[in-house]
């Protein structure tokens, strides 16, 4: 069997979704870990140090390319699957099966993914583009023990961005979508890579739900804490 046949089969396409999905999940952990530094409540010193470290390491920059490739493949393949799967039933039912056998979020991965994609565009516009390309306009920060070297004050940018209520609402809504996307995606990925052992699937399902709730709560609490002034 040729690689091309393997990865374009219905099972192979799902494998691509599962592997890129799991890779993106690992990125979420790193992202949440770094952002959690805002709660050090040290006026952003720890957070800006971590962000600067991530931005200046060559290895991380290379990984960033991998990350974008992963996101892009996950999005494109997701839409390819969504549209091709939808086209398999030209005439629909008059009475739909609805929730009689599946959960709404399992049937709505395309919708949840689209919400996340729209959110990413806003999110990149808020943070990633200024930090990489257009520059952060907030006063740079001098990190302690850095011989007076100035770095982007992403912390100040965060505070500025999350001072607007609509932005906070959009971010919290996106975290909500992320949670449901992960509740389905996490365990489904393991089934797709062939885990057919009841014991491990129970672990994958439980871990998936716990991960989805924890990670989206951690992300959602960032704009909320900033807006409500819980961090300095």
């Amino acid at each position: 069997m040729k690689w091309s046949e393997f990865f374009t089969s219905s099972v192979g396409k799902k494998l691509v979704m599962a592997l890129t999905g799991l890779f993106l999940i690992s990125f979420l952990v790193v992202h949440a870990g770094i952002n959690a530094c805002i709660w050090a409540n040290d006026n952003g010193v720890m957070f800006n140090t971590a962000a600067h470290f991530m931005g200046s390491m060559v290895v991380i920059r290379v990984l960033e390319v991998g990350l974008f490739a992963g996101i892009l493949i996950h999005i494109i393949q997701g839409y390819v699957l969504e549209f091709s799967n939808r086209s398999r039933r030209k005439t629909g039912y008059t009475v739909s099966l609805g929730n009689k056998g599946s959960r709404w979020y399992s049937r709505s991965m395309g919708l949840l993914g689209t919400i996340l994609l729209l959110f990413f565009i806003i999110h990149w516009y808020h943070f990633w583009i200024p930090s990489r390309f257009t520059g952060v306009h907030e006063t740079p920060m001098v990190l302690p023990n850095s011989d007076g070297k100035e770095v982007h004050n992403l912390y100040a940018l965060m505070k500025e961005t999350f001072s607007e209520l609509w932005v906070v609402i959009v971010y919290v809504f996106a975290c909500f979508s992320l949670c449901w996307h992960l509740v389905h995606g996490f365990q489904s990925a393991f089934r797709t890579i062939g885990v057919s052992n009841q014991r491990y699937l129970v672990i994958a399902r439980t871990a998936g739900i716990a991960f989805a709730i924890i990670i989206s709560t951690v992300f959602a609490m960032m704009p909320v804490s900033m807006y409500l002034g819980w961090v300095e």
Partner: protein
Amino acid sequence: MESRSYMEHYSMNLTLKVWKQKNADSRGNFETYQVKDISSEMSFLEMFDVLNEQLIREGKEPIAFDHDCREGICGMCSMYINGRPHGPWHGTTTCQLHMRAFKDGDTIVVEPWRANAFPVLKDLVVDRAAFDRIIQAGGYISVNTGVSVDGNTIPIERENSEKAFAAAACIGCGACVAACKNSSAMLFVAAKVSHLALLPQGDVERKTRVLGMVAQMDKEGFGSCTFTQACEAVCPKEISVMNISRLNKEYLLAGLSSEK
């Protein structure tokens, strides 16, 4: 089943909305019928027999529907009843569904399986030959297993024999496809692949089998599995989606270890 007891006998009048379609090329539409004095002890198909006799007496065209064994083993009785393949009862085929599942005055909507890969031939009859072609692509054992031997001469691990047996219960009815939002045939194919891969007789061809059957499934125009698990919920033989995980594993191992 509502609050009524299984033993209670009653009769009912019903309104049926049934999909009528002259042939594969015509558009089709719902027709409404009234049936009277239907016994709670009749099967759903017997209720259709009563309706068809009534239509014949009135000089009208009876409704075409598939059926054969009427005992839940052939998989022919494909009807999508009130928004669920095979009707409201769990783990039951249409022919085994009894009218006590309904009550007097109910309206029942009956549609054919809907999937491009299962085109409607007439009324509620769909063409499920795609499943036959998937079986022809590998759902069998072609190695010589010798003359038929005594049941227990080939030792098979109990756990595997039970899993294989549970998978072998699939009757190829197509309800999994009918229920799936992607019209995926994965539960059916997974049941067949698992059934044979778990047994020593099927082990020899397990790689070519899974690759062949998945390729044919894709060619027939079924969608891919996104694990909504609607298939398992409606399967009259309660085939587990665990078989789909197993199919994925078989496919990955076969595909990645392929020498060509």
